[in-house]
């Protein structure tokens, strides 16, 4: 691997990207930071309040609740989607017509606009017009996601699993495809059981992809807004008000720009920190080849 040549003129090539992303990201973020340290009584009059909003936020029960719900949600969906995704990827055929069938059907949920995903499950879970709701009621289960927090959580979780497991599957499948056929042949010759093949050949070689999958799923589930919002609106009450939903409520609903801004910054920092932790932990347990 020869070393890449140093060439500072390369900055011209990255300039468009830098400008664009700076425009899309840096400027808005600066505005947010700006708001987070000021207070306004309207009419564009601002006064400095320093870290007041931050201190309020970190003591706020409302924030703690939303954060707690968010962590719980992300943890549950990760714990379901990752093992399920791995199992499905391993079960997928390695060649033949089945591959295309699986790919297309798995990819489908990923390409549905998120509000439509919400709509689909909003309907699906209803007792009067939805297959899921109707069937559950026929089994005697009292299922009402607009009134019962547990039902709401159930609906939101199963929706996310339905929506995003495919991403884990496709990523893991790509990783599996990279395993040369000879490894399977050698395992057969060695008399290895199906489980041994999974444990000693497939799983180790999926590590890199799994890292990407887990990181992506963690980040996206932590930022989730549209789908649960369409289904439950954050309710009943506050029971499914995750961080993004709570933030948008505050930023748009009320006129508390300051607190909303402070929450935004803290929110972003939490994701950055946790992603970094995930990444470091997972790459350090990975052996270098």
């Amino acid at each position, binding site marked *: 691997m020869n070393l890449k040549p140093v060439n500072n003129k390369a900055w011209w090539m990255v300039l468009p990207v830098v400008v664009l992303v700076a425009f899309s990201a840096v400027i808005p973020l600066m505005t947010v930071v700006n708001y987070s340290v000021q207070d306004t009584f309207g009419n564009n009059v601002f006064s400095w309040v320093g870290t007041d909003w931050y201190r309020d936020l970190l003591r706020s029960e409302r924030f703690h609740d939303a954060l707690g719900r968010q962590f719980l949600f992300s943890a549950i969906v990760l714990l379901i989607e990752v093992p399920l995704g791995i199992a499905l990827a391993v079960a997928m055929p390695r060649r033949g017509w089945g591959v295309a069938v699986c790919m297309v059907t798995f990819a489908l949920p990923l390409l549905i606009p998120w509000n439509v995903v919400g709509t689909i499950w909003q309907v699906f879970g209803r007792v009067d017009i939805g297959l899921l709701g109707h069937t559950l009621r026929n089994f005697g289960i009292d299922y009402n996601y607009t009134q019962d927090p547990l039902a709401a959580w159930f609906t939101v979780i199963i929706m996310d699993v339905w929506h995003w497991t495919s991403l884990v599957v496709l990523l893991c499948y790509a990783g599996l495809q990279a395993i040369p056929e*000879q*490894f399977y042949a*050698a395992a*057969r*010759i*060695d008399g290895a059981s199906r489980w041994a093949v999974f444990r*000693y050949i497939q799983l*180790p*070689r999926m590590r890199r992809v799994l890292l990407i999958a887990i990181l992506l799923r963690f980040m996206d589930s932590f930022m989730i807004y549209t789908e649960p919002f369409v289904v439950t609106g954050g309710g009943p009450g506050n029971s499914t008000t995750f961080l993004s939903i709570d933030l948008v409520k505050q930023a748009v609903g009320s006129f508390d720009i300051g607190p909303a801004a402070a929450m935004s910054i803290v929110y972003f920092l939490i994701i950055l920190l946790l992603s970094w932790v995930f990444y470091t932990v997972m790459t350090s347990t990975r052996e270098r*080849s």
Partner: protein
Amino acid sequence: MARITLENIAHSYRPKPNGLDDYALKPLNHLWEHGGAYALLGPSGCGKTTLLNVISGLVTPSQGRVLFDGNDVTLLPTEKRNIAQVFQFPVIYDTMTVYENLAFPLKNRGVARHEIDRRVREVARMLDLEASLARKAHGLTADAKQKISVGRGLVRVDVNAILFDEPLTVIDPHLKWQLRSQLKQLHHDLDITMVYVTHDQTEALTFADKVIVMFQGEVVQVGVPQELFEHPRHTFVGYFIGSPGMNVVPCTVEDGHAIVAGHRVAVKAAAARTPLQGKLEIGIRPEFIALSGNGAGLPVRIRRVSDLGRYKIADVELRDVPLKVMVSERAVIDGDQARIVFDPLHLHLYADGHIVEEPGFEGAPS
């Protein structure tokens, strides 16, 4: 231990093959003696890997039978054939130690712990892996990993044959010879049939007792290295073996003589009573052409002389037919005119690539 018989084996990767061209392996019969060291030699795509996989069971042949010691194993899956196979790149279990890698096949077969330990240590000693037994297989060099692959085959006491599919491909050049010698030594010490697939003639000729040369799905010749060199039964064998390969030039046959570039050349085979059909060619190795400055022989023009140390190769032209001639390093070559004489014992006649035997010559067993 087993003698392996291939009976009328042919294989096509297409579900409905039309005609011989669709076959990756054209029909063949072969007997692999117990304990022999064989090389399957040929260029890419000649069918050698397919043949290897037919023996190991990774490929079930479209037709024919595979017999181990007379038992039909054609339908038997690989894991029941007691075969070990080593692939082009090391296939090891990264997360296990070297010890665990070697023990794996025995563990899966339910062998007792102390027996596993004995076998593993014995094989590790044979392969010089004793020092690394406790290390994770992951961090070792490519040649050590290949040795582990070989080792996993050797630990099984009941292994019938070890099949190598171009095992030195990813090994560093300066370690290739070392690994090759170790494999040869292994064969010498153990009494196991070994089949070694390669496209490198040096590897084949040094490793094997018998070489099977393959070309376009066909076995074109089987023999000891000496035979392949002196008596190539197919132009491909002549061309592929030896460096430089055999000279193959078109000719015609008249009255029991071959006409090459307008010159009459005596070839015993040309006196065959049956009229010869197909593309006719003369084959002779550069080693068996004598070059002299003047005197008897066919006149040639010297185009170039390459000095390769112990010998020289002269590129000459007989009329406009190019030939390579091997000349001793001490020979003095003046000017660009010379004469060549063909050694009649090593001048062969080929029709459509296959050798035409001289009348009275009993066909050599294949």
